[in-house]
């Protein structure tokens, strides 16, 4: 992103240093390594426990549900973060979990043929439009009903309808919201994201949802991409893949929603001159907010599609099947680091510090959004056989 961006550096704004805590110090490349190593150790411990439990219970003929490594990695992370805490030396590296998420999503393109991306992405986009329109309206109404400030209401609405923390931060700059409002909205969205990790898979299993339908539901309803990916992967590997696809469609809309709100606040005369000036070039504004890594995902998916082409010239340009398997596995390793980071940055005490009202508004909104998106996905599954 260009240097002109007014978005804050999330390593200082975003957990593992939750609102109110001292931010991480800027770090060198070497300074990131301890934290990245910790992500790997925690993630790999999750993978080891999954494998160990499976072989141990099988050897003893014990019926035990397969608990994905994702859950173990997140639980170990939460346990460390909320008992001994994450020492300062690891914090900068742990904050890279978001970078690994983006790397994982780009490489995940290897597991999608472009036709599937267009078909499922198209269906997801339609569902996203309906869900976003509903979420924005409903959250705004809820915020007013509970007498929340209009800017806090806007931040909660954007956070729960588009893409969680990033949408809140992008909107904060565009509408000149207070730091306190954005911290509160972020804490509420993170708390609800943590809860969704445990509730979504249970609901999915109770309804016997297919991997496709569940994955798309998680992608549409869970706010942060890391949590949406984890909520999908907790169900199954395939569900995780579809959760990322649906979530990516949702993320792609961030610019339009933020632009809409920015225009609204400027028209009300409540935005600063700097925020107003940003709207001079709307195309540049949209491009600035667009998540560029989505383009990387599409390029990898295109190369995967070319590799499967019947035309030998086109096939030579793309990836072969073993190469796609290798890229898909690299994507899984990147997600492993992400899931460890999701646990390590979850500070349970801080999450519930933000006061009851924003949390209640967020929770009611999330429940309504989860219910509406579930109905939409079940309807789409019935019509399109997702």
């Amino acid at each position, binding site marked *: *992103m260009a240097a002109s*961006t007014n*978005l804050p*550096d*999330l*390593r200082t704004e*975003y957990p593992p240093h939750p609102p109110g805590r001292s931010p991480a110090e*800027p*770090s*060198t*490349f070497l300074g*990131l390594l301890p934290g990245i190593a910790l992500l790997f150790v925690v993630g790999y411990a999750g993978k080891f426990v999954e494998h160990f439990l499976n072989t141990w219970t099988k050897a003893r003929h014990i019926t035990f549900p397969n608990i994905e490594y994702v859950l173990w990695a997140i639980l170990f992370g939460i346990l460390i973060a909320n008992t001994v805490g994450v020492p300062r030396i690891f914090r900068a590296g742990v904050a890279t979990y*978001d*970078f690994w*998420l*983006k*790397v994982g999503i*780009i*490489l995940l393109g290897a597991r999608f043929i472009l036709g599937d991306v267009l078909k499922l992405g198209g269906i997801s986009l339609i569902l996203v439009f309906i869900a976003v329109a509903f979420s924005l309206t409903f959250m705004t109404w809820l915020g007013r009903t509970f007498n929340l400030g209009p800017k806090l209401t806007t931040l909660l609405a954007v956070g729960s309808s588009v*893409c*969680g*923390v*990033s*949408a809140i*931060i*992008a909107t904060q700059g565009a509408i000149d919201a207070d730091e306190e409002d954005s911290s509160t909205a972020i804490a509420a969205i993170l708390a609800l994201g943590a809860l969704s990790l445990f509730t979504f898979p249970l609901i999915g299993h109770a309804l016997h949802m297919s991997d496709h339908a569940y994955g798309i539901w998680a992608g549409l309803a869970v706010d*942060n*991409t*890391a949590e949406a990916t984890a909520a999908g992967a907790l169900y199954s590997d395939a569900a995780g893949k579809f959760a990322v696809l649906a*979530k990516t469609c*949702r*993320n792609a809309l*961030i610019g339009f929603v933020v632009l809409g709100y920015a225009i609204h606040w400027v028209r009300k005369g409540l935005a600063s001159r700097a925020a107003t000036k940003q709207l001079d070039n709307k195309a540049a504004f949209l491009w*600035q*907010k667009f*998540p*560029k*890594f989505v*383009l*990387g995902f599409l390029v*990898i998916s295109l*190369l995967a599609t070319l590799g499967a082409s019947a035309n030998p010239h086109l096939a030579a340009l793309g*990836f072969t099947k*073993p*190469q796609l*398997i*290798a*890229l898909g*596995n*690299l994507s*899984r*390793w990147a997600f492993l680091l992400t899931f460890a980071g999701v646990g390590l940055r979850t500070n349970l005490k801080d999450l519930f510090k933000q006061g009851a009202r924003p949390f209640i508004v967020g929770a009611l909104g999330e429940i309504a959004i989860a219910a509406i998106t579930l109905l939409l996905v079940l309807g789409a599954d019935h019509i399109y056989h997702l």
Partner: protein
Amino acid sequence: MSTPNTRSTFSLSTDTWAILLAAALGLIIRFGLLKSIAW
């Protein structure tokens, strides 16, 4: 999404770094420098 295009240590955005790393890994695999990755 977790973060919009945040800036990272080396003054490139995390999106750019993620794309660069993924491109490097893609090239390494495409040209057979790494045959397979275990999971």
